[in-house]
């Protein structure tokens, strides 16, 4: 619950490189960049010990991977937007925390492992987020992957494990989810000045999600994740998971002050910078029927049952 949460506030930020590499190519990118800057200042003013990033652009297959290399240094180039330039990075990772997070995840039944290799390809979303939110490595970071096959139970448990690890090390964190809202991009190259949300349906759904965020209704969004996935997400993975992870790590309720700092198109997708700060006073009118989960039991092997 919220009183046990070690998380000072949560951020939801987009993964695309334009706010980092070409903020002046359109007013919307500049607006997103300014919102990142505001969040950077707020992190600086907080007494967070670290930043935890859950990135939807870091897919894993073998369990949940957690970056643990103390000094992660490389120059990253995006697969699609390579022509916007390179992204050199030098991130300080809280390796001790990453190991604690890994064992907290294992204690909750997840298959997890840390990665500690020079040259490991940190994903575009994490590079953009950490470069803009923590440019001088004022505090260290931890980055966790998004497993391609993981669904709700695993993701909820993975979120809770982040908080477990903070409690056991007595640390306070800002958590950052890196994800688009609607994620359909234009499939052709566009003039950035003409960027817009891909369709009005995507835009309407984004606006509705942003209303929920602004009201601090994070648990409601978590419960709506399957619907969001079906409506506005390109079906690359099995589910829309960021709200599950964020809600689970921050305490599964609707008691937040929500602030949408920016909402703009990024090559057609919906990019928003949002802050959620725990508060008192709940909002919402939903009854939840998806069960809460504390421990991941694994697949239920439905295929092997009932045919003997």
């Amino acid at each position, binding site marked *: 619950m919220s009183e046990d949460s070690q998380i000072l506030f949560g951020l939801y930020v987009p993964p695309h490189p334009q706010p980092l590499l070409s903020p002046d190519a359109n007013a919307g990118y500049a607006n997103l960049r300014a919102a990142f800057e505001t969040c950077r200042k707020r992190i600086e003013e907080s007494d967070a010990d670290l930043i935890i990033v859950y990135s939807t652009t870091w897919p894993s297959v073998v369990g949940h991977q957690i970056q643990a290399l103390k000094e992660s240094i490389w120059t990253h180039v995006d697969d699609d937007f390579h022509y916007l330039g*390179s992204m050199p990075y030098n991130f300080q990772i809280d390796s001790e925390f990453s190991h604690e997070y890994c064992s907290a995840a294992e204690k909750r039944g997840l298959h997890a492992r840390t990665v500690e290799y020079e040259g490991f*390809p940190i994903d575009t979303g994490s590079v953009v987020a950490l470069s803009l939110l923590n440019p001088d490595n004022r505090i260290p970071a931890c980055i966790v992957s998004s497993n391609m096959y993981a669904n709700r139970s695993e993701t909820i448990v993975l979120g809770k494990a982040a908080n477990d690890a903070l409690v056991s090390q007595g640390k306070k964190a800002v958590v950052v989810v890196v994800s688009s809202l609607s994620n359909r991009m234009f499939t052709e190259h566009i003039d950035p000045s003409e960027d817009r949300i891909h369709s009005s349906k995507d835009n309407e759904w984004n606006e509705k999600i942003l209303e929920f965020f602004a009201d601090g209704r994070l648990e409601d969004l978590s419960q709506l994740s399957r619907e969001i996935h079906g409506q506005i997400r*390109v079906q690359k993975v099995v589910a829309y998971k960021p709200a599950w992870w964020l809600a689970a790590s921050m305490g599964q309720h609707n008691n937040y002050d929500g602030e949408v700092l920016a909402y703009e198109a990024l090559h057609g997708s919906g990019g928003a910078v949002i802050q959620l700060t725990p508060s008192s006073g709940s909002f919402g009118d939903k009854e939840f029927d998806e069960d809460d989960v504390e421990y991941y039991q694994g697949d239920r092997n439905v295929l092997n049952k009932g045919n003997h």
Partner: protein
Amino acid sequence: MSKGEIVLGCLAPHPPHLVYAENPPQNEAFSEGGWETLRWGYAKLARKLKTIDYDAIVIFTPHWQTYIGTHFLGLPEFKSKSVDPVFPNLFRYNYDLKVDVELAEAMHEETAKAGIITKMMRNPDFRVDYGTITSCHLLNPSWDKPIVTISSNRNSHYYSNEVMIEQAKALGEACMKAIEKSGKKVVLVSSHSLSHRHFVTEAPLPEDMSREHIYNHSQYVWDMKIIDMFRNGQMKEVVDIMPEYTEQTIAETEAGGLIWMMAAMGVPSYPAEIYGYQSVIGTGNCIACWDPNNETRELVL
């Protein structure tokens, strides 16, 4: 200048496990072996390649994923370290490779003419994907030929397998035109597994072959069906069945590589040479090639 041609088309799966198992000096990780059926098959195909006269390898990879068009590597050299994001424990490979930029540009131009969105990749810091590196290392460990990597546009995600197939066909035909005009002899490589459901846990010793098996029997049966069709020269039927196959086995064909290669080769009706089939962390992998030359085409396995 005589007309260029495709001298061989290879289906070359790229589990990094295979490079890891070989322990080449370029890779930092150390193994005790594993997956010999595939590695020995690759070695045999690599020997065949040594007997063929060719100028460049053109490879289509699922691990350079682009959503905005199809991209081509467009600088003459790339040198860096490739670390597999999924299996960094197995694959940290120092590469130093040459690109046939002239051929890449020619394919880019023909592809654009065919109405496909395309882009040349000219950022020198770009890291070449591990699919390209694994398949090319195993086919040509001496790296003595230039390559061209083509990204995989994710039409399956954005539209459907059917749309992906139409676009991959158009891309293959455009690449063929460019190759003919270039006057070059080219080996095509479609880099991917067949069935592609992975185990989500890994054995403590990844090369412990007592732990290796196909993810489920259904994937195996589908893979055998497709391989039989390869053997029988039924590539038109393979193209027709591809949406169903890809959906049923979550196959890595979803990226479009096999369709691209078949379209470029005029959808062969002659038998493929089969070099091996084995599972890697549950996925189904077949090494095969299509040799348009009646005189050198063999029954391998």
